[in-house]
């Protein structure tokens, strides 16, 4: 049993995947000699060679496009998109091919696209986006967003070893979040949510970077004698509706939280699903928390844009006071 950061857990998962299967390839912009702008691939090129861990030219559409070709040839590509905001040039390759090529060819496309996502890092434009809803709405993709080092390791291993394409969103603001990681560990299946903290009064449903925020809120609520249950979705597509609905049927109150703007965000799917499946059990409307419906703001204002423990606790009071 050892304590590692979320970032190091991802590095370990890549290292172990490269060691276990010579078909695994890691590539992208600056992932080689530099080891990635977040150092996630640090040391991998040195240890596995330039054929298996390599830098590409600056072209995201091609990075994903060659991943399709490499997968069709029998490899397991694990491309990195340097920042969330730079996945957009690859959108056509992802939506028209990564998501649909199996359906067209009958062939397996074991591609895992790693994307550091989310804000709270004081960055300039395009470096703090949360584009997960675009991909969750795209049939044929699996979309994952871990919140802990153990899940980051386990879910990434599962994604890379699996036969289907996965968009793997890494909460970049949590790369230094520490947690326990015991290796070898049992595989973490995709599509299974996790009760990050059991509670009884309100279900707070989150994923990625917001799980930690929800846990902070839960701790403070405890002090006020309010027991929050924190549900960590882990995987957006497939979505573990059963776990979410079971939690809400227990608490009768739900808050969904993510960093992306609320309008049309993934929280809408979760809220719509809860409102439908737990209709007779809800004692208050499902509350959606998220970023404001504006482009991601300058760094000095991002704390006003993003949900935090205060806003979650406010929502808790509202939902409990409803009616």
């Amino acid at each position, binding site marked *: 049993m050892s304590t590692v950061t979320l970032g190091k857990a991802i590095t370990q998962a890549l290292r172990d995947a490269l060691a276990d299967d010579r078909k695994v*390839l890691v590539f992208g912009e600056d992932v080689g000699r530099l080891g990635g702008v977040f150092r996630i691939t640090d040391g991998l090129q040195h240890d596995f060679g330039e*054929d298996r861990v390599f830098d*590409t*030219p600056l*072209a995201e*559409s*091609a990075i*994903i*496009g*060659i*991943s*399709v*070709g*490499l*997968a*069709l*040839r*029998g*490899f397991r*590509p694990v491309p990195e998109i340097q920042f969330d905001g730079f996945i957009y*040039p690859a959108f*056509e*390759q992802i939506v*028209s*091919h990564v998501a*649909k*090529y*199996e*359906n*067209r*060819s*009958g*062939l*397996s496309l074991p591609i895992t696209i790693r994307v550091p996502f989310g804000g709270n890092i004081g960055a300039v434009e395009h470096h703090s986006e949360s584009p997960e809803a675009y991909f969750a709405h795209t*049939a*044929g993709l*699996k979309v994952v967003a871990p919140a802990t080092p153990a899940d980051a390791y386990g879910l990434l291993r599962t994604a890379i070893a*699996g*036969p*289907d394409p996965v968009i793997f969103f890494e909460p970049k603001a949590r790369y230094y979040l520490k947690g326990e990681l015991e290796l070898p560990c049992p595989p973490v299946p*995709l*599509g299974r949510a996790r009760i990050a903290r059991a509670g009884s009064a309100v279900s707070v449903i989150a994923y990625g970077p917001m799980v930690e925020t929800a846990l902070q809120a839960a701790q403070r609520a405890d002090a006020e004698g309010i027991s929050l249950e924190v549900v960590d979705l882990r995987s957006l597509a*497939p*979505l573990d*509706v059963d776990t979410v609905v079971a939690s809400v049927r227990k608490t009768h109150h739900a808050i969904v939280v993510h960093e992306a703007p609320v309008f049309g965000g993934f929280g809408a799917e979760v809220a719509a699903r809860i409102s439908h499946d737990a209709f007779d059990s809800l004692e208050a409307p499902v509350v959606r928390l998220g970023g404001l419906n504006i482009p991601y703001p300058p760094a000095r204002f991002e704390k006003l844009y993003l949900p935090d423990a205060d806003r979650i606790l406010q929502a808790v009071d509202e939902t409990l006071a409803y009616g």
Partner: protein
Amino acid sequence: MPQTGTANHGLTREQLVDLYRKMVVIRRADQEALNLQRQGELGLWGQFLGQEATQVGAIAALQDSDWVVPSYREFGMAMCRGIDPGTMLGYFRGLTHGPWDPRRYRFLPFAISVATQVPHAVGFAMGCRLEGSQDVVLCVFGDGATSEGDWHEAMNFAGVFRAPVIFLCQNNQWAISVPLRQQTAGSIAERAQGYGFPGVRIDGNDVLAVVGAVRTAADRARRGDGPSLIESVTYRMGAHTSADDPTRYRPPAELAPWEARDPIARYAGWLRAQRIVDEAQLAAIAMEADAAAQAMRATLTHLPIPPPGASLFGRVYHDPPASFLKEREEFEASLEPPP
């Protein structure tokens, strides 16, 4: 435009005749597919009339172990790879997105989104190189495709990674209604040097010129010397697709000079002059082509409609989530006639 080269690239008489046979057979199939579309048997058809030399010559220059990454107009190439044309037409009949097993024929699915297949070909070729395999990849696209960002990114990657790929542009002068001069002010073939590999422009209506150029590029790739770009200059004698009306944009005078360069008539003339074929053989090949076209029609019109459940849900995931399987069950249940 040069005359048909006399270089026969060491092809045997049989091989030389086979090039002719294949051009005649795919043209006849193309014509039959158009008939089928007009008769309502196909939703859409995109003719390759006039481009037979490029399609037959390119495949003839490859080894069976090599791979082909097509756009949507390479039906003739697919036939040359042995894919059953009647079954393939199931795609244009709206029965399936993927009528053949790409591994069996080493021929990837049609790519409708222009130029998006080019990076696939490069990645595939990078994989061949990583394996130390001798396989090379033929990547085919049109003149319009060279304007897309994906085309450029893939060309540059191929140069950097010395991928064993042959970029074959079927420059048929038009992208739907947009003529080449409005597609680019530059030269397609000359772009290759900007990526660090050779580019050539060839007479795409001269089947032997195509065989020669593709073979040179394939040898180069197999040697480990990397990619090549071939701009095969030809002409789209038909409409863009059965949904298109070229009379709205194409000057009629444009066709005559290209008819004079018809790849099949030209090659037939050369074969005759070389005394490689006689009229009897030519007539036999024409009959063979008719028979093949009729067989294609029969296959198509008897294609069963695949089961909806498998067609819609069967190939989306290799490891389908439980929720997805549940949706499939509900869907299939909804198909059963209410009791």
